[in-house]
């Protein structure tokens, strides 16, 4: 009898063993810091002194009126996210379509295109720093093509382009791998039936394959958006936020304000607004992926 009851109800110690360590870690790393940051967001603490004055909503007012660099960082991040989403997904889908045509060495190509994704953003930033400083001008000279001969990272517009190029180079493989999985998952019965009904390759691709891959496309869209919004390593190493702070991402801006500009209170307020932005993106994502799923099942 005793055996039976112990089958259904674990003891306190068993609960403690399984959930205790994780709960403590979670409390230390996530919950307490999050609560502290809410408190500091309303102060003018500089990160070092023992005193932190309560300033009410001043930090948030500074953020939204453009007195801090947050809006500039948001503009940069938004532009990068916009181009990344368009180009990375389009390229990824095209590459997936090309690689699923039963060409030889499919697997080898998949490895090559995914490769930049496993190298960290910091190292890739330094790799491309060399390419943009020395490689690109040399190529420009060899081709007699003037736009390639300028120092790309020294000008705002081309520095933007540089960061977008590198992040697409890094992330395209991810979209491609997901889309290859999606496309090979489309039942060959369906495409075969369409072929028998007289559909050509293009019709099969646009009318059958792509619509069926919609949930995966949604997934990739939001992955690319959130990757762009969380950018830190890449612009830290590639441009250091320059020229003139034009390529500072949201995360790098928080880091700079806290550790370089000694505006700890402001930085925590910025980090809360940053959290709000990510929250909105994720909520929209959940809404859309649920809709996509319903459409697929319904």
């Amino acid at each position, binding site marked *: 009898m005793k055996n039976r009851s112990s*089958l259904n109800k*674990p003891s306190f110690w*068993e*609960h403690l063993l*399984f*959930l205790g*360590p*994780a*709960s403590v*870690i*979670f409390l*230390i*790393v*996530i919950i*307490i*810091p999050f609560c*502290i*940051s809410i408190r500091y967001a309303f102060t003018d603490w500089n990160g070092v002194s023992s005193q932190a004055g309560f300033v009410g909503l001043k930090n948030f007012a500074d953020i939204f009126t453009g007195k801090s660099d947050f809006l500039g960082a948001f503009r940069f991040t938004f532009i990068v996210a916009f181009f990344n989403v368009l180009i990375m997904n389009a390229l990824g889908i095209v*590459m997936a379509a*090309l690689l699923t*045509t039963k060409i*030889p060495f499919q697997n080898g*190509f*998949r*490895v*090559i*295109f*995914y*490769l930049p994704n*496993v*190298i*960290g*953003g*910091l*190292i890739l930033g*330094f*790799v491309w720093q*060399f*390419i943009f*400083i020395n*490689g690109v001008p*040399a190529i420009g000279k060899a081709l007699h093509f003037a736009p390639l001969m300028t120092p790309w990272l020294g000008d705002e517009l081309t520095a933007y382009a540089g960061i977008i190029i590198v992040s697409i*180079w890094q992330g395209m493989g*991810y979209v491609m791998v*997901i889309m290859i999985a999606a496309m090979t998952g489309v039942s060959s019965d369906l495409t075969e039936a369409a072929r028998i009904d007289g559909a050509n390759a293009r019709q099969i691709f646009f009318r059958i394959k792509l619509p069926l891959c919609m949930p995966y496309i949604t997934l990739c869209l939001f992955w690319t958006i959130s990757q762009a*919004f*969380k950018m*830190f*390593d890449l612009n*830290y190493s590639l441009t250091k936020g320059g020229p003139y702070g034009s390529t500072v991402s949201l*995360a790098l801006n928080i*880091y700079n304000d*806290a550790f370089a500009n000694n505006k700890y209170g402001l*930085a*925590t307020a910025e*980090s*809360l607004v*940053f*959290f709000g932005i*990510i929250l909105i993106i994720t909520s929209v994502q959940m809404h859309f992926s649920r809709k996509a799923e319903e459409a697929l099942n319904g």
Partner: protein
Amino acid sequence: MTTNKKKSRIIVFIIVLLLALLFVYPLFLIVLNSVKPLAQILTDPLGMPKKMQMAENYQKAFEEIDVLRVVLNTAVLTALSVAGITLLSAMTAYWTQRYPTRFSKLFETLVVLSMLIPFASLMLPLVQVMKALYINNTMFGTVLTYWGIGLAFAFFMMQSAVKGLPVELEESARIDGCSRTKVFFSVIIPLLKPTMVSVILMDMFWIWNDFIVPLIMMNNDRLMTIQLAISRLFGQYSSKWHVALPALVMTMLPIIIVFVLLQKKIMDGVIAGAVKG
């Protein structure tokens, strides 16, 4: 019809091949220039090396960033973090699924919600907390950080794996007299192995390549990771490419080798993670 098909397949192959070459060209340039003397790197970055200076360049870079130590540090940090994340996520995902209580429901909700918090929103006060616990700038504090921020995603993956496990197996083990802890370690863990492999592979690449967490949590020369060492090297040696480029090659090499060896498993894990996340 078939010759047409063959032709179009060859054209596609050539297009893809050209794109692949273009894709790896930047990495090729890095390797190519890493064996040249500085003068030629600056004047002729595209040409073949006129004078091989591989030994000198690589030796200088090797000493400059203390490659063995930083690789070892990164490996230890990654191994401890990944092991902890995997174990903690398996335990909590299993327990909250099998023995739900009011507390476990709260735990589950908070962990899943924490996936929404970007690290940049936690990093500033986290340093304060670690200071208060006297573990700031230590390996342990950094590992603890990864356990905390890595838990949510791994928990999510484990949870969907646990949902698919048959309860009958555990029940018969329990009737045979196994304790709950024993059931977990000898029945559940083997069943969760495929998911654990996915979690390990994904988190391994994340932590190995991560820069922001060590930058903030581990300001300690003895514990320097690959990413920190490279970042410092570029601060000091910007435009001394004959040292910086070999350093880049040496630090990229381990991760590329691991990726090529485990590529099938890694990409399966990426797909599984994307679909469940």
